[in-house]
């Protein structure tokens, strides 16, 4: 990190925070603070996209492409379908009822206890996720830059708290525009530099040929293999369900599109997301593929996680690790020559060359797997999966001065944009669904102040959780599991509310409580992979509520004579 990098990093972050506070000063009522409702469709679209794109999207996704290719983009194929359903069903209802939160609607459709239950499920799940949104980039940046983990957590969290508490929803929307510009600008600059850094004679088309030979351009997989997490079918079916529950029932997203100045602006913002999300993810993965091509001509570390490498090099397994490193270097030299020849050749020899490259890739993979085993032997607790570190390693070692600062600003902006939406939504749900609903009769000013206090409280809790997060093993998976346990049930309740008119609140509430217990039992006794708990919970609550309602209807029927 040079002075110019620090200048770019601190300058961009401070500008965003100060601009957010200045632009949204004079907030005088709770409607302005929690709802905003003056955003254009473009603002809504950017805000929705910036909320979903966390730092992990920009740091980990290129690493995912580096190791496993571009198949991850299929995960987003269901999103446009979900956008259409949300525009046609969810938004008109939320706007017509003029709600602040998604859970408010459930009281008008069912009753207070169903609203309170879903609001609490959201607060538990999203409260934990907010901590992870801060922790995940902080652990990567502290590992590669040597920053103190606790102070990095506090820095990210505090910057977000300052403008989210000060300006509420409007501040979140305003800052997300700048943050999206920094994020996409950073990725675009990295992409251009990657192309520029390729050896003479290797253009973009050649680079794609090399990536194709390495199996990195297998974007689509039409197999029905349930063990494969990313296929066309899991993307279309599972992705639609996931996107529907995330965008339709998670307040951190609902609050973004309810801030549109009309129903039309909200809908167009979501449609913009439907148009741009798949190409955006494709582009981020393409950057990862270009990093892969770059490392076909430049030496790469055996494991990109510096903490893992340091750990093994300070252990009795250092010699074993170094011997694998030497083999990797030899393989790299022979593969480099093959790849150069392959990229520039036009003759029939190509398929033979391609087979040789595939064999060299296989050796590369095996050596990296062996290295992971050695690291595990040296230190059981260290993370051996290095996909989170691939892109940041490239940035720190191969990008020019100033651009490093821009990319770090990109990662921190992404962390801040997601966290601010989460804190804003947590504050809104606590104020509207729990506090205001139960403590009525106070002034607007009082509720405004309380929503600021609740936002601050959630911010502090998120930082605390982020600071203690490294005490737990595989914490990100833990939070995903918690999400999968609750999401399906909540989506099922909303689908019943929208589409099954005859179901009453009594059946829904009983079904929701029973479903939650069964889903937790299902997770505890390991009935299925945890991602399927989403679908299981959704289907179970719907079937159970409809069944109960039907049984109740049967009981009410007079006996036939």
């Amino acid at each position, binding site marked *: 990190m040079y002075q110019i990098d620090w200048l770019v990093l601190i300058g961009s972050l401070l500008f965003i925070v100060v601009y957010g506070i200045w632009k949204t000063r004079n907030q005088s009522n709770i409607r302005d603070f929690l709802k905003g409702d003056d955003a254009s469709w473009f603002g809504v679209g950017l805000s929705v996209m910036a909320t979903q794109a966390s730092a992990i999207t920009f740091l980990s996704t290129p690493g995912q492409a580096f190791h496993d290719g571009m198949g991850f983009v299929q995960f987003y194929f269901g999103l*446009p379908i979900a956008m259409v*359903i949300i525009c046609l069903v969810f938004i008109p209802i939320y706007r017509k009822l003029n709600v602040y939160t998604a859970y408010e609607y459930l009281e008008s459709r069912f009753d207070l206890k169903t609203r309170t239950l879903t609001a609490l499920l959201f607060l538990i799940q999203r409260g934990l996720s907010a901590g992870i949104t801060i922790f995940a980039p902080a652990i990567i940046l502290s590992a590669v830059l040597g920053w103190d983990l606790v102070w990095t957590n506090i820095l990210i969290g505090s910057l977000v708290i300052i403008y989210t508490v000060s300006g509420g929803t409007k501040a979140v929307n305003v800052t997300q525009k700048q943050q999206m510009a920094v994020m996409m600008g950073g990725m675009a600059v990295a992409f251009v530099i990657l192309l520029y850094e390729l050896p003479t004679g290797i253009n973009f088309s050649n680079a*794609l040929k090399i990536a*194709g030979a390495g199996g990195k351009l*297998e974007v689509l997989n039409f197999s029905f293999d349930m063990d494969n997490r990313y296929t066309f079918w899991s993307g279309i079916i599972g992705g639609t369900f996931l996107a529907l529950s995330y965008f339709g029932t998670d307040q951190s997203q609902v609050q973004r599109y309810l801030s549109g100045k009309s129903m039309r602006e909200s*809908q167009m913002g979501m449609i913009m997301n439907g148009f741009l999300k798949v190409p955006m993810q494709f582009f981020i993965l393409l950057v990862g593929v270009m990093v892969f091509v770059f490392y076909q001509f430049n030496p790469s570390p055996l494991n990109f996680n510096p903490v893992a490498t340091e750990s093994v090099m300070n252990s009795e397994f250092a010699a074993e690790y170094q011997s694998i490193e030497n083999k990797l270097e030899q393989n790299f030299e022979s593969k480099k020559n093959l790849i150069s020849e392959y990229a520039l050749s036009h003759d029939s020899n190509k398929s033979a060359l391609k087979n040789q490259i595939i064999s060299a890739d296989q050796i590369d993979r095996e050596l990296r797997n062996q290295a992971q085993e050695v690291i595990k032997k040296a230190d059981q607790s260290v993370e051996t999966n290095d996909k989170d570190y691939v892109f940041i390693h490239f940035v720190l070692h191969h990008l020019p001065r100033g651009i490093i600062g821009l990319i770090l600003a990109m990662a921190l902006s992404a962390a801040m944009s997601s966290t601010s939406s989460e804190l804003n939504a947590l504050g809104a749900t606590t104020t509207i669904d729990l506090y205001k609903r139960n403590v009525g009769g106070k002034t607007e000013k009082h509720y405004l102040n309380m929503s600021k206090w609740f936002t601050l409280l959630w911010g502090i809790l998120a930082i605390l959780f982020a600071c203690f997060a490294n005490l737990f093993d595989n914490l990100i998976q833990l939070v995903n599991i918690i999400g999968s346990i609750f999401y399906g049930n909540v989506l099922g309740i909303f689908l019943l509310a929208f589409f099954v008119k005859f179901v009453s609140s009594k059946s829904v509430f009983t079904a929701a409580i029973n479903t939650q217990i069964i889903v937790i039992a299902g997770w505890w006794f390991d009935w299925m992979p945890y991602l399927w708990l989403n679908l299981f919970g959704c289907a179970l609550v719907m079937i159970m509520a409809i069944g109960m309602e039907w049984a109740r209807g049967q009981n009410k029927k007079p006996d036939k004579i």
Partner: protein
Amino acid sequence: MRWEKLKKPKSEGYSDFYIIFGKMLDEKDFKTKDETSINQLSKNWLPAYTWVLAANAVYILIFLLIMKIFE
């Protein structure tokens, strides 16, 4: 309300995107007697939202093409 505003010229601040997709999302598509009915979805989604689904179908075709060319 029909979207009269869209008839205003570009100089009044409406971009091409707004005009094209704003028209597709005309408010009449959402006016139903019963908003909780699934009929709303089946009746109205085709005219208004085909474009976003078509665009994504085109993306998938492009991905197929990329796979074929660089496999």
